């Protein structure tokens, strides 16, 4: 009986231990399968020609597999959306953590969470039917489906991420720092800008990077509103084709295990690499510059 119990105990602990590795094994498997399906393209084109090639004509004859325009497009929509989302997200976070009353916070926080829950396909749809005609008419453009529209829609998907992580960071700043600053005669605003924000800057940076990581990987929005033209954008209102859009749009037509298919997996590798890089940087910042009490200020 007793022995039995101990065996169950040990067995369960091992079982749980192995399950805890599920996430990391999935991550490794994702990398592995992207590589096995993506690497064969490099028999056709060199890594340099793939990454820096100016032309993406996967179905033309002869084919061109240069994803440089796609990479530039991805980075452009991400940076532009960050320009909108970072101020908005961080300011909302400050408002929630420092300024708002308990009641207001109880209402606004769920609003931000609901914004995060909105299906991306619906946001993309909204961009197509509302924002695109609006942009087209106001600025007299050839098409409202462009870089700016995509960045705007992406911004609203990144705001909740940036806001909630920043808020946690601001919230966890020890209260005696605030009290010390106020006791020295600083106003609430001065306390926020000179004491609270510097103390939570690592958390806010993590939030910004994770928000950008979400933007660069977001698929449906860029698939539906970015315009789809595989060229390096020269202006704010140029149609673009970011990496996720290219994969999503072309995979269905790419012949199974043909060059195009492998090229799309290789594009997935590049995308995966970008988000992995963002996440690891965020993780390093979060761990290295973590505010422990007030001793490290």
């Amino acid at each position: 009986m007793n022995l039995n119990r101990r065996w169950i105990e040990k067995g369960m602990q091992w079982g749980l231990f192995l399950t805890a590795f599920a996430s990391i094994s999935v991550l490794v498997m994702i990398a592995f399968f992207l590589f096995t399906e993506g690497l064969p393209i490099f028999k056709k084109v060199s890594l340099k020609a793939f990454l820096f090639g100016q032309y993406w004509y996967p179905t033309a004859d002869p084919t061109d597999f240069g994803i440089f325009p796609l990479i530039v497009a991805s980075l452009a929509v991400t940076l532009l959306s960050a320009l909108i989302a970072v101020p908005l997200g961080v300011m909302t976070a400050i408002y929630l953590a420092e300024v708002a009353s308990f009641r207001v916070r109880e209402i606004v926080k769920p609003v931000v969470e609901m914004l995060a829950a909105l299906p991306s396909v619906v946001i993309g749809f909204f961009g197509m039917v509302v924002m695109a005609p609006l942009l087209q008419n106001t600025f007299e453009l050839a098409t409202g489906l462009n870089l700016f529209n995509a960045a705007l829609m992406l911004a609203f998907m990144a705001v909740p991420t940036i806001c909630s992580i920043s808020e946690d960071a601001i919230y966890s700043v020890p209260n005696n720092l605030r009290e010390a600053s106020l006791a020295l005669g600083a106003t609430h605003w001065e306390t926020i800008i000179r004491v609270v924000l510097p103390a939570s800057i690592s958390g806010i940076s993590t939030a910004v990077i994770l928000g950008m990581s979400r933007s660069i990987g977001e698929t449906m929005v860029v698939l539906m509103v970015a315009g789809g033209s595989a060229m390096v954008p020269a202006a704010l209102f140029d149609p673009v084709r970011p990496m996720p859009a290219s994969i999503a749009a072309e995979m269905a037509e790419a012949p199974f295990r043909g060059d195009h298919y492998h090229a799309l997996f290789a594009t997935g590798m590049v995308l995966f690499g970008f988000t992995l890089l963002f996440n690891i940087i965020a993780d390093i910042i979060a761990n290295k510059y973590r505010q422990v009490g007030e001793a490290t200020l």
Partner: protein
Amino acid sequence: MIRKLQQHVFFNLFRAAATVNAAALILLTGFILLKGWRAVTWTFLTQPPLDSMTRGGILPCIVGTLVLSLGAMGVAMPVGVASAVYLNEYACGGRLLRIIRLGINNLAGVPSIVFGLFGLSFFVIYLKIGVSILAGALTLGVMTLPVMIGATEEALKAVPDTYREASLALGATKFQTIFRVVLPAAMPGILTGGILGLSRAAGETAPIMFTAAVFFRPDLPESIFDEIMALPYHIYVLATAGTEIEKTRPLQYGTSLVLIALVLGMTLAAILYRTRLRRRMR
């Protein structure tokens, strides 16, 4: 005086930023509601699409989305809860724990389209499951795993240590304590996480594009190896690749409304329930 004014100006700016978020949510849902409510009739909810998807309803899509997201939680919940139990109850710091955590954080950041590629190459092709409900549910399940782990960990942390100590003092083993005391106490929080995971899985399009979703299939699926229609994919198809994009606008609004109602309804329910739980904990 000027300092007070400065504070006033900036605080109002912050308030405005928060308002923009609320406005965005209201604008988007309000617009879809306004344009879509006329399309959502009983026939719309209970009929398959007709006339190359220019008339009729979305029943197969609703069923498909429910089946896929429930299936996803069937995968993510057991694995997620077990992972969280290990991380919160057994693991004690160290390098291994840090690696596991890094894995979870990075999995949470993997783009949805990459999950789609993974599902295609692993479940559909390598395991030879084919484009099917099973492959789609597995892909979505893997994607929602980090959500589930996070929610369960939060729920486990909220269980007071005195519960554990009392159970251990009565002679229960660690596993008995977890299974009979800690998990039941954390169950409401875990279920809340499950609902959030469900709503996340229901709204995703990219992971099911190559693994489960089909353009058109009027009858309901018979087995888990069938392809299936789904609400998000249906919206995408009608809005971008349909035969008559303008003519099917009402259907697009209607489908969007149903999807939003489903996803936001579940999210709101989970949020309200969680708020009540937290209040009781205090």
